[in-house]
């Protein structure tokens, strides 16, 4: 597979955590200034919001990655307080509170389907399968907003290679935990639980596809998909399942949750594509959280190196 790497980023160009944690205050101030201007208020002292920092879950030995972007990292506070996590709530501001006591240990992941041998692995065993890397990725939601997140994890292919799928494996399916006792959103039928997402094998094997267990140098916060999630940066965010409990290999395309719920609006591929609108809204632009003006959305979210996966496919049909 031809893999085009982005221009190397010197480690000096990567923002140290202390700096971007400070920057968030500035950005919050800028956003507030903009909004205050809108509301016709004069500007005075801007009250800086309280900072939430996870102190106890540092991940050691994180390597840098050449896949990282050098774009401004979205403040931690935004990435942890603005979440689409319907298992907890359809309100983006609620998962942060509702997921506070979510139990992420003990946690096992079942690996089955078209594999040599079905396995039930402890999440801590999986996390130790390869060295953790920081991958600073753009993350584009199908709703039209985007963030830049310093995820921590390693290529999903590392796990897949160890899972030893058989030649029958053409697709891989990721299932999110179903536990209505802990997840109030699952007590209603907003979506058909459990949440299922999937990838074609060649997509899953692409080194950009990330098995993720941390962000901002620490373990994943519960509201961002702890203890283990998938991150597929060239696809809309809903493809990146959270709190994974099962990884199943199969010879047929998985029935994925959003595509089942509204096949006209959400496809199996869901590649970020500014030229294919959502039936109800345009995908040409996006609002990067913290920015005032919308920016143009890039094909494959700017990850052109995946284009070869889709050679000869009509991406308007396979949206």
């Amino acid at each position, binding site marked *: 597979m031809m893999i085009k790497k982005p221009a190397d980023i010197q480690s000096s160009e990567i923002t140290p955590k202390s700096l971007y944690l400070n920057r968030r205050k500035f950005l*919050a*101030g800028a*956003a*507030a200034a*903009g*909004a*205050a201007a*809108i*509301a*016709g*208020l004069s500007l*005075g002292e*801007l*009250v*800086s*919001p309280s900072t939430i920092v996870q102190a106890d879950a540092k991940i050691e030995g994180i390597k840098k990655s050449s896949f990282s972007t050098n774009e401004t990292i979205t403040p931690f*506070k*935004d*990435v942890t*307080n*603005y979440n689409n996590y*319907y298992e907890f709530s*359809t309100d*983006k*501001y609620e998962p942060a509170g509702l997921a506070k006591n979510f139990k992420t240990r003990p946690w096992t992941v079942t690996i089955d389907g078209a594999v040599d041998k079905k396995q039930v692995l402890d999440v801590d065993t999986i996390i130790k399968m390869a060295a953790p890397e920081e991958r600073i990725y753009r993350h584009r939601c199908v*709703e039209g*907003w985007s963030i830049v997140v310093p995820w921590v994890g390693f290529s999903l292919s590392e796990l897949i290679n160890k899972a030893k799928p058989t030649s029958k494996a053409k697709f891989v399916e990721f299932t999110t935990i179903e536990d209505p006792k802990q997840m109030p959103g699952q007590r209603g039928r*907003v*979506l058909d639980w459990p949440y299922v997402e999937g990838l074609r094998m060649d997509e899953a094997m692409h080194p950009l596809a990330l098995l993720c267990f941390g962000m901002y140098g620490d373990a994943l916060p519960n509201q961002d998909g702890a203890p283990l999630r998938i991150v597929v940066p060239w696809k809309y965010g809903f493809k990146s399942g959270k709190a994974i409990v099962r990884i199943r290999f199969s010879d047929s395309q998985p029935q994925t949750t959003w595509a089942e*719920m*509204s096949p006209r609006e959400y496809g199996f591929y869901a590649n970020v594509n500014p030229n294919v609108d959502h039936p*109800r*809204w*345009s995908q040409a632009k996006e*609002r990067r*959280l*913290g920015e005032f*003006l*919308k920016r143009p959305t890039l094909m494959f979210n700017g990850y052109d190196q995946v284009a070869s996966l889709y050679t000869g496919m009509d991406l308007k049909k396979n949206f």
Partner: protein
Amino acid sequence: MIRWFKPVVFLACLIPLALLGWKAYSGALGANPIEVITHATGDWTLRFLLITLAITPIRRLTGKLWLIRYRRMFGLFAFFYATLHFLTYIWLDKFFDVHEMLHDIAKRRFITVGFAGFVLLIPLALTSTKGWILRLGGKRWQALHRLIYFSAIAGVIHYWWLVKADIHKPLEYGAILAVLLGYRIAGWAGPKLSANKAKSLREPRFEVRQG
């Protein structure tokens, strides 16, 4: 009613805007302030439309005739928040990109219907004065102002069509609207009010069966 009551209600109607302004000022609008502003102004438009539509039924059911004096104010606040909502869209969302807006209005049905709901409110706001009631005559004025029914229906559909999966909030608005419009339909279709009671409500004349 006590004379100072009306200004108090007026100021109370501005609280949602003041809260938004305060949150913006204190940096409490969260990760996506523009989305919060869009949703808040949209929500308050619908709420004021429903409050406006609730005046007549409540007035009839409770006999508190003075309520009529607040209907215009609530209606104008619905228009006020709708205007803020629309401005948020053209300024903060589309940044005055006229081409893109026209494209949106033509192509995205939730925007088409929301825009229609807003446009329907404009003549109502313009003719909300006593002078216009006299100029048009009570009957015609009243007929014109029934446009608010369609505006409210459009508003609920607009909300319904834009949500991704969780329709419970538009459903709540829809249910309240159904009750308020149902009350009127029942009034038209069912047995008329006793002549005496209707007469007692006829003050001033154009307010009979007011929207």
